[in-house]
């Protein structure tokens, strides 16, 4: 068995004890934040970070990830790993949303979502372009017999010995939805942290609010990128390899990733808050 052929056998089973332990850690962190900082900006920041993290962890499951098999035309999806794709979509969204940061949470989050979705839409389009016109393979899903959205039949286009290939319509739509979720989540984390740092840093560093803007932006951006990557990789570990999109049976594993993302975001979030509040 080669290193590439070995698939980890992390099944779809849910470890209830571990889930409960995870939820208890989450509640402890939320409780500790409330106890330490009260119900002010810091607490709201933590809640925002957890929501953003869950959006990222959930969104990654929509993205059609093909990995190395897709590059050889033996599996459907975009031919790279989950972490790279999610980072691309999320950071594109984060940069988009950061431009709109002054226009309020709602506008900025939606802008971030559109940035992420747009990036995935363009990626998916050119991936299909190269598959169809460059490699000469039709798009066919290996997991379903009919495309859930268009109703097109799939098996007659699927080559023997492959798990499907190309990027069927439902995978394309899944990619765009994943980009929307990822971009919105990343932007939300950035916005709540930026608000908190712009409020707390002037007093902590004994400087004018206008002076600390570069520090606040860099700190919030860096923490947002860090949390984004942590959540994206945890979701990737949940998928273990490739996924076709929302119609893939692996998609049903998302409750585990939601719990894991919430706990991981809470842990990273309380550290990010303590840098100014302790």
């Amino acid at each position: 068995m080669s290193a590439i052929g070995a698939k980890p056998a992390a099944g779809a089973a849910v470890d209830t004890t571990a889930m409960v332990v995870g939820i208890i850690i989450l509640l402890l962190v939320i409780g500790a934040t409330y106890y330490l900082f009260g119900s002010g900006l810091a607490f709201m920041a933590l809640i925002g970070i957890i929501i953003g993290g869950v959006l990222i962890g959930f969104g990654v499951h929509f993205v059609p990830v093909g990995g190395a098999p897709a590059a050889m035309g033996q599996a459907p999806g975009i031919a790279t790993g989950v972490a790279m794709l999610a980072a691309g979509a999320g950071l594109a969204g984060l940069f988009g949303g950061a431009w709109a940061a002054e226009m309020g949470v709602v506008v900025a989050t939606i802008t971030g979502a559109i940035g992420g979705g747009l990036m995935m839409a363009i990626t998916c389009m050119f991936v299909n372009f190269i598959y169809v016109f460059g490699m000469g393979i039709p798009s066919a899903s290996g997991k379903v017999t009919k495309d859930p959205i268009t109703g097109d039949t799939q098996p007659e286009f699927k080559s023997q010995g492959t798990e499907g290939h190309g990027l069927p319509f439902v995978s394309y739509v899944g990619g765009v939805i994943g980009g929307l979720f990822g971009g919105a989540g990343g932007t939300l984390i950035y916005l709540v942290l930026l608000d908190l740092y712009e409020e707390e840093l002037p007093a902590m560093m004994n400087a004018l609010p206008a002076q600390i803007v570069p520090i606040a932006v860099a700190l919030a951006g860096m923490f947002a990128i860090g949390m984004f990557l942590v959540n994206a990789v945890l979701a990737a570990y949940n998928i273990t390899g490739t996924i076709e999109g929302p119609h893939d049976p692996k998609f049903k594993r998302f409750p585990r990733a939601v719990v894991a993302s919430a706990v991981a975001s809470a842990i990273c979030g309380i550290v990010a808050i303590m840098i100014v509040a302790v």
Partner: protein
Amino acid sequence: MTVKVEKIEGGIPHTTIMIAGLIASLVFLYLTYANVIMGTEYFAFFGGLATVAALIWGSHTIKHLCSYGIGTGVPSAGMIAFGSGVIAMLFATKYGIAAPIVAVVLAAVIGLILGYLANNVLNMRIPVMIQSLVEMAIIGALVLMGYAAMMTGSFELTSLTTGNVQILGLSLPSYQASFLGGALIATAFMLGAIAIQHPFNACLGPNWTQDRMLMLAAECGFLSMITAAIMSMPLISMSAALVSLFVAIIGWYYTYAKYIELSKRDAAAWLESKPIPDVEGH
């Protein structure tokens, strides 16, 4: 149940590399503190050496983890290392001289929780998962702290956030010309994240050899150190930055030559071709 697909045969055991990497990295980080004691910036290059030590350890940790076939690609391990490491490192810089120790402890706690989430909540069931993610978070924090110490001469939050700008001969404090305010940390993040995942990604396979991968890790570390030395020029004195650059180039050349030598040793056959072939009749 997971199948371990590659064994580490012979060579240095992982525990030895881990302990050596941790101690070397911490010692080099504390050597940069000589800057504060002696009021100079010439010891900044020790920060770069700390990153090289941590990166060598990190590439072996990735080998240790990814030999179980985690199914998500090797780069994802580097990304989670720095994603969790940056959070621990930034918080730890608040603690002055204790910063490297605080970073190691906090990164271990974050890594432990992430490892538990990956192994139990996400049901990965990989025996070395928790230990590896703890190590990865510590490595991420130490590498970033090494770059911070190298580019600014110190690992304290005040010196990471405050720089100086020369305007008409006057030296004015500026938050924008700093490691954090100028977002040099984002570049340091990627320099480290790519250097940590590349060695195993490039050397994996049936003819993987430990010394070749570790030499490539050192080479990647010194290559990143060259870039970091150039980026340190606006933040520390030019002569101190040139010392860092000199050390980085010497280290890079030595490790690169050794790596090519080891690659030729492991190759079945090789042909010495020139980068641009001479065309006859010209």
